[in-house]
């Protein structure tokens, strides 16, 4: 399903301002003379998937896509990944057949481990310091690169989390959008 998002692009004499929706229009333009003002309606395609790379026990790297909110076990099942002998308890934290070993960097970013998860992992074959139960890791959509910082002030976070990247060039009066967004000019 597509979602429509309205933004207001105000090109000022010295600057470009991009604001969400029409509510900000008045506040933004007050005190400044806009050279150009555009209302841009963005239709977002909701295939905002995240790529996950799995490495199986033979060292093979397998890439798969998941949706935000999926658990990694959901990704393995939905994407039909060729792994053997996982999911004995069907994701209810009652066995140790699905567990993942993460790089230190990634492991540190994961949420806290519960006692119950640790108890199950104690039974896991090939346990390491950076093992986590697969069922427990949900995908978070992350903004990539510096565009996040730039836009954070202009957009609410929930809006920016939907866009993979929006480039704003101070020299130009239009907003360049990534290929995932198809702008509709009103």
């Amino acid at each position, binding site marked *: 399903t597509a979602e429509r998002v309205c933004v207001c692009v105000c090109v000022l004499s010295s600057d470009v301002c991009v604001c969400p929706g029409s509510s900000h229009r008045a506040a933004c333009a007050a005190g400044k003379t806009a050279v150009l003002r555009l209302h841009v309606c963005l239709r977002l395609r909701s295939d905002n998937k995240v790529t996950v790379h799995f490495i199986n026990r033979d060292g093979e790297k397998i890439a798969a896509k998941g949706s935000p909110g999926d658990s990694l076990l*959901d990704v*393995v*099942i*939905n994407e*039909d*990944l*060729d*792994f*053997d*002998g996982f*999911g*004995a*308890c*069907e*994701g*209810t*934290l*009652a*066995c*140790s*057949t699905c567990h993942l070993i993460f790089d230190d960097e990634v492991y540190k970013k994961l949420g806290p481990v519960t*006692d*119950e998860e*640790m*108890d*199950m992992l*104690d*039974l896991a*074959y090939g*346990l390491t310091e950076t093992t986590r139960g697969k069922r427990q890791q949900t995908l978070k959509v992350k903004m990539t690169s510096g565009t996040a910082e730039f836009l954070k002030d202009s957009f609410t976070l929930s809006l920016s989390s939907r866009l993979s990247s929006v480039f704003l060039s101070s020299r130009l009066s239009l907003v360049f959008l990534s290929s995932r967004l198809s702008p509709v000019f009103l």
Partner: protein
Amino acid sequence: MSGRTLLWTLGKSGWTKRLHEGFSGCGKAFLSSSSPKVCIVGSGPAGFYTAQHLIKARQDVAVDIYERLPVPFGLVRFGVAPDHPEVKNVINTFTQTAKHSRCSFYGNVNVGKDVSVVELQQAYHAIILSYGAEGNRSVGVPGEDLAGVYSAKDFVGWYNGLPSCQELSPDLSCETAVVLGQGNVALDVARILLCPVDVLKQTDITQPALEALAQSQIRRVLIVGRRGPMQVACTIKELREMVNLPDSRPEMVAADFEGVTEALKDLPRPRKRLTELMLKTAVETPGEKEQRRRASASRVWGFRFFRSPVEILAEPGRGRAAGIRLAVSRLEGSGEGARAVLTGDVEDVSCGLVISSIGYKSLPIDPTVPFDSRRAIVPNSNGRVRQATGLYCSGWLKTGPTGVIATTMNNSFDTARSLLEDMDSGTLDVSAAKPGSQSIGALLEKRVGPGHSWRPYLIL
């Protein structure tokens, strides 16, 4: 079905989807008579995981699973505690396997009695014995036959609905129960004995067991072991459940934990976390909230270490258990290999219920199959039965009666791999056609009679 289960079943693909080609719910695949035919004896996790692996690996293998009981799944159905329903989720994947076009399940067939292994070998290219451990180790002390003394296997079978254990009617009118053994089964028994009835009501425990437990007078359960805290065979999840059991408080002997704190740092993580939790529960003064909770608890549980049963004592004039005489032991050596040595002292504990949970035991079912009676397993090398061709084993029969479902899964995959290797290399000749279930079926009809329902069991 819950939404999550439905999603699981619909979305499930990958390695189970690859098994399901030909899933039609009725008619099985017609296979040429020269396709390799494998017979698996026993339909618990070992049997099903071995079957799964074989079916996935080769498109021409047909697997028939024979089971003594009318229903499949073995200990997953009859051994897993009723308050651990998630562990039983494997039944879903096993059901899918049984429905596969190249897999057939036959219940009510007693291999060794209704049909011999030799007869199976004539009908199949390979036999995989995965019938687990239906016996139990006996304590071997006087008084073991008194009323009020049960094996954990029978007690668990009773509350789980195993047909042969439904007449057990254990008397729960005493105050103290003693469980011998400190593995997960011992903790399951202790937990079911002390679990609040409101919680048990929500599980699939049998109605008679629920009613008996609702009337139970048991308020104290001692879980007794010959060795010390660092030798317990249970795992941390089960221990944590005891610690968190509503309306129950722990009571242990602090002196039993001497030297444990010092030894912690050298332990591997699973043993370390388990020992830490036990130590904390046994000797630490808890916070206020926990202190209040313990003070108001109506039931007590605790480990008793360094105690070995020497006799179960009867009530004078009655043939029922009234107490147990325990010999005091001390430890020689440390770690997994530590041995209990008797000191000469004894201690009597009053109790009306004694449950021995010192291990299941495999039994030989056919004289032509090699059997190691000391270890109670079928002697094998990677699942290939020693001094036999075309005979394999998986699960507890192969490695002894310990391990969770995941352990059995790996164990079974190993055996399947051995068989596949032998088929591929020609060590096992699968070129000659074999009749499979057709000849066994005819044999059973003749021997047991047409009324006997050995027919393919429809899994509902």
